């Protein structure tokens, strides 16, 4: 699994960080940082949830 963020769509709502803080972090500059582009299998369910719940539909997954 590879995590891809479309930064043209992302507005740093930080929903993803709430669901999977190991993978997503919104810092003080209000920018989203992907901490782990290839998260472990144990995190996949939460990453998928973050994809679903991103209000800007800005996150996608590649195989």
């Amino acid at each position, binding site marked *: 699994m590879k995590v891809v963020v479309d930064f043209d769509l992302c*507005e*740093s*709502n*930080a*929903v993803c*960080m*709430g669901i999977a803080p190991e993978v997503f972090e*919104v*810092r003080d500059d*209000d920018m989203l940082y992907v901490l782990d582009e290839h998260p472990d299998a144990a995190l996949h369910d939460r990453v*998928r949830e973050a*994809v*679903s*719940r991103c*209000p800007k*539909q800005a996150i*996608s997954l590649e195989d």
Partner: protein
Amino acid sequence: MSEPKQIVIVGASLAGLQAAQTLRRASFEGSIVLIGDEPHFPYDRPPLSKQFLAGAWEEEKLRLRAAVNPSELGLDWMLGVAATGLDLDLRTVALGDGRTVTYDGLILACGAHARSLADHPPGVFTLRGLDDARALRSALDTGPARVCVIGAGFIGAEVAATARERGLDVTMIEAAAAPLVRVLDAGAGLAIAELHRRHGVDVRLGVGVNEVQAGADGRVERVLLADGSAVEADVVVVGIGVVPNTGWLEGSGVSIDNGVVCDSTCLAAPNVVACGDVARWNNPRYGRLTRVEQWDNAVDQGAYVARRLLEEGGVDPEPFAPVPWFWSDQYDRKIQLAGVTGPNAEVVNGSLDEQRFVQLYADDSGRFVGALAWNRPRQAIQARQLLEQEAGLDEARAALGG
């Protein structure tokens, strides 16, 4: 329920699609029928009042991710056809084209429709679906001299902001004393009014609308207000709330009262669950029937009811007890509320003047119940987690203060 073979979802928007996706993720291999009264594949509604109305996005960009490849989830799509009746005994849904669909499990995700004025001339719009947005966008494309927005809720305030950013002359009228009174406290609502005024919107608060009048050409010309004044307008947008789509369920045996009334697990009848804007369930966190017209709730509840339906007859399911959360984008401001407002409000980070702040809410007993964040997205999500953990006010101050 023992191994349902066919699950029918009425409503092909965010909540319904999320339910379908969750069923497949939970390895449900039976058939899923997704019924939608609009002819369009599921699309995202929040951009309709923003990027789409602004002309920055085209329609392809609105499609919800899970529907970009419509064959991916193996759904039986029935689009452009309305559900017209439900028979709980026979477990069938009747459709507008005369067909009938049988279900083992039924998910009601049929949403709501925009309230409008009883009688109005051409040039008056509501905004709920893609067709509404197309029509309003076309009207704004003609460069109307004056736009009048009736109602300063989310839709009204966002349309006013977008129209203003398109350089149009905008008046926004609200019968209540402040914008967004249904979800925000008056102080925050007035800050929204101020935001619009700074951007040049003529905001009229505490005054109702008596009549929308047509000119000699039969099209809308002016809006008459209860205080005797008049607002000239070429385009009028009405944003005065929505009505749940429950007409087709009347007499079915499902309890209807400002939505589909459900228990705390979103169950409306045997093997029937409801989610999204149409569902009114007892959220145990607040101990009252709640109907939530918010994007995140549609996703969360759609996923919840799908799992709930598959577990029917098994262990007692956990109730659906989310902390609500919404956002609204107006101009360059991102406004988010986690939880609910309360009578006691305090700013703990930034200030209203800067238009960048966090405001905490406590109820009468001093319990932390919600947080409002203006251009503080990270704090909004933190606040939501604190509320889920039932953190105290001191803890919230320490975590969210600046």
